């Protein structure tokens, strides 16, 4: 299988401040220090840049 056929690895994040967003049509509230699943893709760059989330190891 070519690399282009592989699905991108799912990225998981940890919230460094409290976050609110919609995931799967439902409101999600994540407290600081907790795992944040389903963050809208368009929000991830600015959240990382501002140090509001970090990628989970």
């Amino acid at each position, binding site marked *: 299988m070519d690399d282009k056929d592989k699905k991108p690895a799912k990225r998981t994040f940890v919230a460094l401040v409290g976050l*609110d*967003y919609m995931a799967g049509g439902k409101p999600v509230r994540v407290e600081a220090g907790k795992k944040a699943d389903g963050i809208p893709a368009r*929000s991830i760059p600015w959240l990382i840049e*501002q140090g*509001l989330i970090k990628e989970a190891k």
Partner: protein
Amino acid sequence: MPSFTHGKEASVLTNGYDMSAYLSSVTVAGEAEVAEVTTLGADDKAYIPGLRDATLSTEGFYAGGTGDIDEVLAARLGTQTVWTVVMQADAVGALAYGARVIDTSYEVGAELGGAVAVTIEGQMTGGREAARVLHALGSETATGTGASVDNSASTANGLSAYLHVTAASGTTPTLDVKVQHSADDATWADLATFAQVTSANGYERIAVTGTVNRYIRAQFTLGGTSPDFTFHLAAARL
């Protein structure tokens, strides 16, 4: 044509009380000092900017009952208080002024043929802060968020926020209020968190430093049994 505002639309909150029903006028005044730097040989005086200053003055009508204007304001003379003045209809996004004010004068006067009047003067400390309303004065009975306010761009110098809680009811009610910000109006990050409020007449000014993204909004969490809080929230980009 500009959209003018009638004076009747203004509202005034201080230390968790809505004083609008007692007041007939409010003035938020700002001025700036200058220092003269005129030198020999000059034909015209020259100045450089100095410090800004701001004051608040209000006039209204006396009422002496529990929670009325006299009880709220007379005892505060010489103390620092928290004020929010909205100079247009109170709604999310409306312009407001927030300030920490030392109440410097409280006068009560009666004249034959007129209503007993009150006058309040205050000296702002830390300047007047141009804010936007994030939650107009009104009741909430469930956890929620306010509409977002778009500043068109982010800012870098922090934010101050003013909360006044004018009424509370329920069994062991709690109210937690935050200001949230967002770069895309989709994901919201906590920016400033007020101390939990459990009763009426709570108030607080809080300030944070750093980046404030393009959009801001109120987020409020209610707890207890049948909670009902009436509150106002405004925030100023610094």
